[in-house]
């Protein structure tokens, strides 16, 4: 930021922080209007909730937003540069703030569902003109004492499940948008570090953090190009085949016990099915492009899909067998008792199943070394050859969003889901107060652990991509069908026998089971601690490892 300024940001200048008077007047007028409407609705409409919401709450919200926007615009020049210089703290702050928001929203929803709606169910006579079960007075009487009465119109819509769904859907879409934007930037930084360069450094100030949004804007502004000979309808349709399943997969993906949009009994099958639909997008895109390289890409993806899907599904059967459920929430909850209760360490077959699932999942995400459908040195860009601009961006969005889903599945099914390495039972004595719930969410089991672990496996995917060469298509088929498939079959069989042996509850078997779990857990711990340690060592000694000539240029150059 010191030597480079983003062109669309105004340069910091001194003076003229005048507060826009018009916005203040507008806010005051709106507040007056809201007060008048409050009196009118209370007197003539009997305080009907919808009228209150539209006529009173809406002007108040708009007034607050107008005042905030006016304040932000008038002082932007003063705090804008500071903001861009302190981007890392902002990032951390945003993460913490969003965690708090998610927690608060969840608490509010739970309260609305349990206290308000359940209370209304006990009182069948209570109906309003909208056939909603609750009036404002009832909400006020059911609310905690510290909530002021004027907030009740805002809480009122929460009693309708549709409204709660809309709010959580919005949250999910925001998360779904942030993941690719962040991961693309992060991938470029990781690749830069691995390859002895810096990656994006300019856009936005701190380590080019605004590179992905800037690229997104560029892609949206690009010409909307459809090749003349392409199948126009399918060509336009294909990106949506990619992005919609990837987005829909988030609907069933639990971030925590209650942090799930729809808790399905067959969530695992649902997510796998949606990820399978993503393959259709690649095939349709390749076919519709009417380009020979695209067709090659599409056919490779079809080929790859039939070979990786079966071992992947088989590997995922192992934790399903161990827990006895297809519901991701139940599988996650079965691993609440700390590091050694995680399913990857429950038996040797599950441990190997985790590795085979991870390999197959690389193929499923079209990540290196299985990135054959878009192999840039062989097929130009594979199925993406003819795509540009927004459609290309949609494909990329879908790919990175699906990567997180795949990593999330690995985390839920094998590595404890949203639970921390500490056993959740340690916090059982802390009670159920607001503070205790917050602390337990951070220490033992909460969405933050799920996101952290998922991000770690995203990093592993990036790491592999920038280290390994690409496999040839016949080797992919060989590896998946002739190696992984028999292996996962044996794993399913062995895991079944292991679970069956555990059902006998003999003492000797329990001891043996415990010893194996401990050994596997320690092996996993060595990996989990060793890899970051190596990375930290490499980062700390990077100048010695790379050499001195890099820093010290020759006089003539």
């Amino acid at each position, binding site marked *: 930021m010191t030597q480079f300024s983003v062109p669309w940001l105004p340069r910091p200048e001194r003076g003229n922080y005048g507060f826009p008077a018009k916005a203040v007047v507008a806010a005051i007028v709106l507040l007056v209007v809201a007060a008048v409407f409050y009196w009118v609705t209370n007197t003539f409409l009997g305080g009907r909730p919808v009228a209150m919401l539209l006529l009173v709450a809406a002007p108040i919200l708009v007034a607050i937003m107008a005042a905030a926007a006016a304040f932000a615009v008038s002082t932007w020049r003063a705090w804008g540069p500071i903001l861009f210089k302190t981007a890392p703290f902002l990032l951390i702050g945003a993460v913490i703030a969003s965690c708090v928001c998610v927690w608060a929203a969840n608490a509010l929803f739970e309260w609305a569902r349990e206290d308000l709606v359940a209370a209304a169910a006990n009182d069948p006579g209570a109906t309003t003109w909208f056939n909603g079960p609750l009036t404002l007075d009832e909400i006020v009487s059911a609310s905690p004492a510290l909530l002021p009465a004027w907030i009740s119109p805002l809480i009122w819509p929460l009693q309708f499940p549709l409204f709660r769904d809309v709010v959580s859907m919005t949250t999910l879409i925001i998360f779904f948008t942030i993941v690719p934007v962040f991961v693309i930037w992060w991938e470029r930084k990781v*690749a830069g570090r*691995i*390859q*002895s*360069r810096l990656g994006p450094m300019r856009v936005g100030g701190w380590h080019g953090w605004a590179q992905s949004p800037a690229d997104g804007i560029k892609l949206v502004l690009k010409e909307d190009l459809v090749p003349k*000979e392409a199948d126009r309808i399918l060509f336009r349709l294909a990106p949506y085949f990619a992005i919609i399943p990837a987005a829909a997969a988030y609907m069933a993906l639990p971030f925590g016990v209650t942090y799930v949009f729809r808790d399905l009994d067959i969530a695992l099958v649902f997510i796998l099915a949606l990820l399978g639909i993503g393959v259709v997008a690649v095939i349709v895109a390749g076919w519709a492009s*009417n*380009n*020979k*390289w695209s067709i*090659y890409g599409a*056919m*490779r993806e079809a080929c790859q899909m039939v070979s990786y899907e079966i071992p992947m599904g088989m590997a995922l059967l192992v934790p399903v067998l161990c827990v006895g459920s297809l519901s991701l929430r139940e599988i996650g909850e079965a691993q609440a008792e700390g590091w050694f209760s995680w399913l990857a360490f429950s038996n040797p077959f599950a441990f190997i199943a985790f590795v085979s699932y991870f390999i197959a999942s690389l193929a499923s995400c079209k990540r*290196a*070394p299985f*990135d*054959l459908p878009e*192999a*840039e*040195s*062989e*097929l*130009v860009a594979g199925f993406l050859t003819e795509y540009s601009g927004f459609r290309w961006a949609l494909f990329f969005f879908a790919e990175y969003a699906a990567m997180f889903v795949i990593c999330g599945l690995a985390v839920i099914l094998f590595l404890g889901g949203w639970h921390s390495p500490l056993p959740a039972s340690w916090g059982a004595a802390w009670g159920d107060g607001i503070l205790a719930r917050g602390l337990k969410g951070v220490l033992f089991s909460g969405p933050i652990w799920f996101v952290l672990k998922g991000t770690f496996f995203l990093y592993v995917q990036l790491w592999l991509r*920038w*280290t*390994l*060469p*690409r*496999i*040839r*298509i*016949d*080797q992919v088929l060989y590896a998946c069908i002739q190696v992984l498939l028999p292996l996962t079959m044996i794993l399913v069989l062995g895991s079944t026998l292991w679970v069956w042996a555990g059902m006998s509850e003999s003492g000797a078997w329990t001891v043996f089971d415990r010893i194996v779990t401990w050994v596997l857990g320690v092996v996993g711990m060595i990996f989990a601690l060793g890899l970051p340690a190596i990375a930290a060592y490499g980062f700390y000694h990077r100048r010695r490892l*790379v*050499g*001195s*000539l*890099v820093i010290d*240029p*020759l*006089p*003539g*150059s």
Partner: protein
Amino acid sequence: MAEIVLQSAPDVLIDIDRSEQGDLHTEEMLVNMGPQHPATHGVLRVVLRTDGEMVLEAIPHIGYLHRCAEKIGENLQPFQFIPYTDRMDYLSGINNNQAFAIAVEKLCGIKVPSRGQAIRVIFAELNRIASHLVTVGCYGLDMGAMTMFWWCFREREMILDLFEAACGARLTYSAITVGGVHDDLPDGWVERCREFLDYFGPKIDDYNKLLSYNHIFLKRTGNVGVISLEDAIAYGLTGPCLRGSGIRWDLRKVRPYDGYEKYDFDIPIALPGGTDGRPEGVVVGDNWCRYFMRVLEMAQSVRIIRQALDQLPDGDVLAKKIKNLKLPDDEVYVEAENPRGQLGFYVRGDGSTIPYRVKARGPSFNNLSILTHICRDILIADMPAFIASIDIVLGEVDR
């Protein structure tokens, strides 16, 4: 794209022979690989006749980068033609300069001062390392291992820094000219060069760890695109491609020029897998051997440069008269060992200062000629692997 194919070959979809029962065939397809393709290393166009992923036939089409380099040589004095030789094989400009300079010196009987010769060797070997770094790095790129490319270019950048300090250019050096070297080395250059060699030596091990002995890489390149000894000789392959087929043939040893006989170095050749540290699954003449030749030659170049820096004599670097040379009415053909093979120059003088005829024999052109012979019944993914392993530079193929 479809239109281009139609123009070049009307029979886009060739009716296949369905008489072979029990053998699965699909419709054959003609695919243009290039001239704009990430893996053809320039503007090479290869027309592939494919059956699914199998390449049945690959026919190279060249000439997209033709710039009449030889004809230009017949209109300029030899020292003026030196910058044009840079642009032939643009990754090893100095080696091209050297080959042409040696040819003219032999024609005119010019004796190069010993310091000039030593600097020529240092430059040529540094450029050989730089060129091999591009080859090795791009081989990683073509295999999908992009990190190799950046690591190699990191070191190549330092060599370019050295060249920039020595002659002011980073790609088209024209540092070697008829009669010696254009300029002497600047102060402190020798020390910086030694520093670089100290730094670069261990890096070769890093390349081997990252790519050469990588399991996937070995599976991709081992026993693929095998060029037999007979084929290599019959098609006139030279350089690492020839040595990759198992012949110990290097002009620096067999016909030493510019004082290469004074230095102690080895000529690496391909060995079958399992012998002398070569991994299993590798056969003589495959893609991996040709790739590995370059890695081994880089280490040998480091040895040569170290010796040349130690033995660097004092004195002039350039013979007295190089401008307005009267070329005798005689002809000469001289070959020198380029990073890609033997670059030969035929120069015919007619008594004036301008050559009557200049003809180049490019290693890339000859190495490319074997493409059709080898790329038959291989997978599409092996095409870039093979093209990268013979390491053509289209600037020199088309000249």
